[in-house]
């Protein structure tokens, strides 16, 4: 190499380094605290993947513009193992070590409660998918939920199931023995009772359980017409369904947190057929937007699992955050959190808003459709899609 060439190469490397340094100063880190191992791993891994897709897309389109300055997003994700103990570690890592000011995805009421205890007093804004009602309200002004929870799902799901199975009069409920399970169980009991269905038994299992035969035997004890598997993730629910099949139970199966048929059918086999799910959607059909169809294809290629509402929620929170940053012209989480409930913004579903003040005393719930699906011949079939009334009214008013 000649001396002139060496100078050119040195200059090129130096300018590349300075370019990178300049950009490194304008990066906004977006955190994720979700299970990335164990029975619920596919939820967390998918959530991380969609958040990265949103961040990359926004960065390619020029980033976020605030006060005339351009910012790029970078996603930092940690495995909270669905436990409060790991959730605490993740919170410390994200907030104290990585200095993250925005968390765009969180799963699990217990780990999220641990995260929230630090995020609210550290001025960190969080978007979560935890199912507990206790994580929302005016006392948590920096917390937002970007996917449906039992308060949005259970009532329409149970009504639909009963309309399809009018002879069903009794139900046995199973939930994980943790914060998510405890909160959902209360809502489920009330919702079934309100519809005239008698709750025969409400049962609990520990996350990490490996032998589900006793659980299945207990569930079928009083011969219920319906078995509601509550917050059991697909891997656990699949084994329970398989064991129910071995025992010869042939009732109505409901999995409110059922996010896809793939894992459920892979594990539960034929016993998974007929299961009603409240947390899945057919993102390959014409009902889905083009963005969701592309994300769905990416998920299938990456994880061999179709996209589900839980995973797509972090994509939506990244876009909600971008919109609120630009609308408030600030990267201060408090200013962004203040403007967010007042605005209409774009998500993978199209335009939406934050609302549900009547339920949570504060408009912190993203308004997205409730999709009721069923496992048929090992595949998921979308039965109906319900648009929230509040969303319809707010969008009409905005027009």
């Amino acid at each position, binding site marked *: 190499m000649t001396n002139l060439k060496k100078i050119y190469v040195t200059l090129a490397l130096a300018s590349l380094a300075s370019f990178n340094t300049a950009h490194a100063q304008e990066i906004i880190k977006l955190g994720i605290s979700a*299970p*990335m*191992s*164990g*029975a619920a*791993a*596919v939820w*967390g*891994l998918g959530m991380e993947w969609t958040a990265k897709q949103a961040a990359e897309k926004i960065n390619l389109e020029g980033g976020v513009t605030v006060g005339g300055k351009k910012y790029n997003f970078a996603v930092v994700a940690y*495995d909270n*193992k669905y436990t409060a103990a790991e959730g605490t570690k993740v919170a410390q890592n994200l907030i104290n070590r990585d200095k993250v000011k925005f968390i765009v995805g969180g799963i699990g009421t217990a780990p999220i409660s641990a995260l929230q205890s630090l995020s609210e007093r550290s001025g960190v804004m969080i978007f979560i998918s935890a199912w507990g009602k206790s994580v929302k309200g005016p006392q948590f002004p920096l917390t937002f939920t970007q996917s449906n929870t039992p308060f949005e799902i259970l009532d329409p799901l149970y009504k639909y199931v009963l309309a399809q199975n009018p002879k069903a009069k009794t139900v046995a409920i199973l939930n994980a*023995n943790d914060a998510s399970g405890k909160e959902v169980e209360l809502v489920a009991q009330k919702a079934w009772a309100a519809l005239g269905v008698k709750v025969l038994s409400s*049962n*609990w*299992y*520990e996350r*990490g*359980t*490996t*032998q589900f*035969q*006793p*659980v299945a*035997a*207990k569930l079928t*004890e009083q011969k219920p017409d319906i078995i509601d598997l509550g917050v059991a993730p697909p*891997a656990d629910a*699949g*084994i329970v369904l398989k064991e129910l099949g*071995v*025992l*010869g139970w042939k009732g109505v199966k409901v999995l409110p947190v059922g996010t896809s048929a793939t*894992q459920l059918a*892979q*594990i539960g*086999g034929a016993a998974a057929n007929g299961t009603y799910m409240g947390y899945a959607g057919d993102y390959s059909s014409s009902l889905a937007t083009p963005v969701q169809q592309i994300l769905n294809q990416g998920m299938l290629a990456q*994880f061999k*699992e179709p996209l589900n509402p839980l995973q797509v929620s972090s994509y939506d929170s990244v876009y909600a955050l971008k919109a609120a940053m630009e609308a408030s012209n600030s990267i201060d989480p408090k200013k962004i959190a203040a403007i967010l409930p007042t605005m209409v913004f774009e998500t993978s579903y199209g335009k939406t808003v934050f609302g549900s003040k009547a339920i949570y005393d504060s408009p912190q719930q993203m308004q997205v459709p409730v999709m009721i699906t069923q496992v048929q011949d090992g595949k998921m079939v979308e039965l109906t899609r319900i648009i929230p009334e509040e969303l319809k009214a707010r969008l009409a008013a905005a027009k």
Partner: protein
Amino acid sequence: MEIFGQLFLNSLQISAAYILFSLGLTLIFGVMKVVNFAHGEFFGLVLLLIAVLVPWLNNPSVPLAVAYGAAGAVSILATMACGWFLYHFAFKKFQRDMVGSFVLSVGLSLLIQGLFLEFFGGVPIKLPDLIEGNLRILGGAITTQRLVLTLIALLVAVTMCWLIAATKLGKSLRAVAEDHEAAMLQGIPYRKTALYGFLIATFLAAIAGALLAPVTVISANVGSDFLIKGFIAIVIGGLGSIPGSIIGSILIAVIESVGGYYFDPSLATLAMFVITMLVLLVRPKGIMGNG
């Protein structure tokens, strides 16, 4: 009557899994006085390797049973090699050192779990059933596959008991477990016996993993899920005692099955810990513990 049959079958299949797992744990403790928290990782390694190899091997020209057999054999051998490596470069230096071996095995467990997550990912995997169909026995229902695997597991446990009770190697293992210095004075090579004990324990974890591969959901932390129950079993039965680990495993399987049915699956788990505490209070060495 039907429900008693079902509870019996549930207890039988659960206890078979726990017996295989806890036998290895108790053997390592007996021979080396090492509480091996990384034992679950040997079990997990076999499952994860089988989860990779079975879909790779299984195609129209290779029947599923052959794929399982080949994958099981390769995975068990790989796990044994891993056990030999860990014994030579780690556990050998911490024999009869409870604190040192505790720190070592917990550290190794975390490290190996991290490596599993990195190499195998966190998504749970369920392999196809090896044997289709259900059976009704004593009014209860069980899958044919579970019944066959349970019988094989019990056969392995019986063979293990025979090996310990009636062979020269078994006598050496028992002698070392009872008093390693006296055993050495009698001409028993302690280090070699300890290595054999460690490898047999690794083999038991590996065979447990291979047998449970078609019926369990496989993930990077599957070993630690079984480890807790395995520890409860050997603490109740008596650390280092082979019959104790079998009794402990049967006891927790019955609590899980019967307690889970008559009370609540979650309460049954709680009951296991309460019984462990009671056993430790009344008989600190466990039911069959001595020394």
